[in-house]
């Protein structure tokens, strides 16, 4: 499982990195007379209603999906790690205030809010990333907090305190390295969620018209589902597989990072 999901994630990353090197940036936008061709040797994934190659669109879309997924997960992970560590380690008033804040975030419908913000502020990957990171860090923060609370009472944290090591160093060198496993698991879930959210927003047309992503291709496809199935099936399957692969890969990474597992 680790190899399959990890291999798939690596493959996607390679596609995303190599695409602009091997293809001209206009290639996916190239309009032609060969409209709505079924998958064939010339067009493996067929063509859309403007005669554009679906394979090229899907390859180009990989970039958007991966950037949005990975960057927003990374940003949410870092914010959550810092906030959660402060909350768990300081305790008291700071902890209470941070935890109430995360609870407010948890009852917010992320998709609706993201759609609202993007619709009002305008589309763009950076905004989508900011919205996803800004709304999903509380999950990571809560996980980190509970880990920090658990670890700070363990023997090695107390032993470090008895050795006169400063609280800051204990937090950074003893506690946080042992709390990152669950953070990575949560972050891969965030990445999968971000990819789905970006696809959904593009599907509803909430992206700029000059970017191609899996969601926007899918959106074209659903209008033509009965005449050109390939427009929906290929990007849809990729969204599904990518979200799945990120989830599974996250589980494997977390297990691999746990020094006690075999």
């Amino acid at each position: 499982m680790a190899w399959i999901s990890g291999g798939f994630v690596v493959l996607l990353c390679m596609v995303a990195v190599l695409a602009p090197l091997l293809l001209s940036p206009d290639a996916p936008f190239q309009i032609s007379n060969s409209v709505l061709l079924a998958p064939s040797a010339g067009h493996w994934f067929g063509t859309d209603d403007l005669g554009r190659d679906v394979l090229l669109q899907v390859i180009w879309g990989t970039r958007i999906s991966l950037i949005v997924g990975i960057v927003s997960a990374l940003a949410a992970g870092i914010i959550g790690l810092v906030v959660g560590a402060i909350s768990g380690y300081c305790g008291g008033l700071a902890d209470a205030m941070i935890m109430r804040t995360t609870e407010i975030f948890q009852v917010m419908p992320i998709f609706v809010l993201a759609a609202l913000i993007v619709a009002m502020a305008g589309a763009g990957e950076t905004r989508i990333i900011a919205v996803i990171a800004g709304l999903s860090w509380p999950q990571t923060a809560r996980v980190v907090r509970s880990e920090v609370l658990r670890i700070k009472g363990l023997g090695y944290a107390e032993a470090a305190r008895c050795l006169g090591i400063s609280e800051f160093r204990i937090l950074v060198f003893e506690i946080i390295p042992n709390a990152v496993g669950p953070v990575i698991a949560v972050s891969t879930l965030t990445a999968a969620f971000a990819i789905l959210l970006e696809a959904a927003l593009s599907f509803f047309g909430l992206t700029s018209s000059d970017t191609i992503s899996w969601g926007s291709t899918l959106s074209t496809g659903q209008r033509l589902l009965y005449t050109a199935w390939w427009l929906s099936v290929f990007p849809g399957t990729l969204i599904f597989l990518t979200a799945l692969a990120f989830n599974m890969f996250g589980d494997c990474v977390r297990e691999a990072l746990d020094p006690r597992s075999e």
Partner: protein
Amino acid sequence: MTTETQPARPLLDVRSASISFKQQHGAMVHAVRSVSFAVGAGETVALVGESGSGKSSLARLVLCLTRPDSGEIHLAGERIDHLSNRELRTRRLLMQPVFQDASAAFNPRRTVMQSLEQALRCSATPPVDMRPAVEELLEQVRLFPASRLLNRFSHELSGGQRQRLGIARALAVNPRLIVADEPLSGADVSIRGQILDLLIEIQESRGIAYLFITHDMTLARAFAHRVLVMYKGEIVEQGTTEQIFAEPKNEYTKILVKAAASIDDVAA
């Protein structure tokens, strides 16, 4: 309690220390109530009592991991309970803990070498050359062959080896007092004996004092110079080991002594 059982110039002096905790549903638990005792240099004092009697809370108080609500803790003639963590730093090295749960006592991301190096670096005079210093520590606690253990992680060691490693870490900073919270409760009988022998040997060579927390009266009798009996957060009786076992005065102590005697009968 007679005055001659108290050491003249105690290393550790706890004066009417109390601490209470608030439970989740708001009730206060008085874990330690106005406890006073002293530990002299090079002496072994056993703190006995059943689970929940406040022994571990008292150990944490002594180690300044929690601060008393009232009372004073003096270490080597200096009051330490009101010092800030920064001020405590160097004083803390005089006393070191050995924990009950040896599997959680070491950072799972550090090797044996890294854990002991961390401790050595905290000592008053950190060695320049770490590797031989770490190997020497391992040999002192009879962990052989030291060179083969250096790159292992603590979870790759056996329970007994881990407990020895815990003792080695405590020794790294040359403490004068070791606070050991049930250090033998996880080990099987043969390993208990070996670790007990090791502790006695270390005491003889280094003159270290032990505050030895245990629920096991037979262990206290075999090992301790003096015994403190704790019940419901209070020290109900203290005296030399002979006194406590020969003529216990407190009712609870009598029950403990009697129970220990009957275990001995079964063993014999």
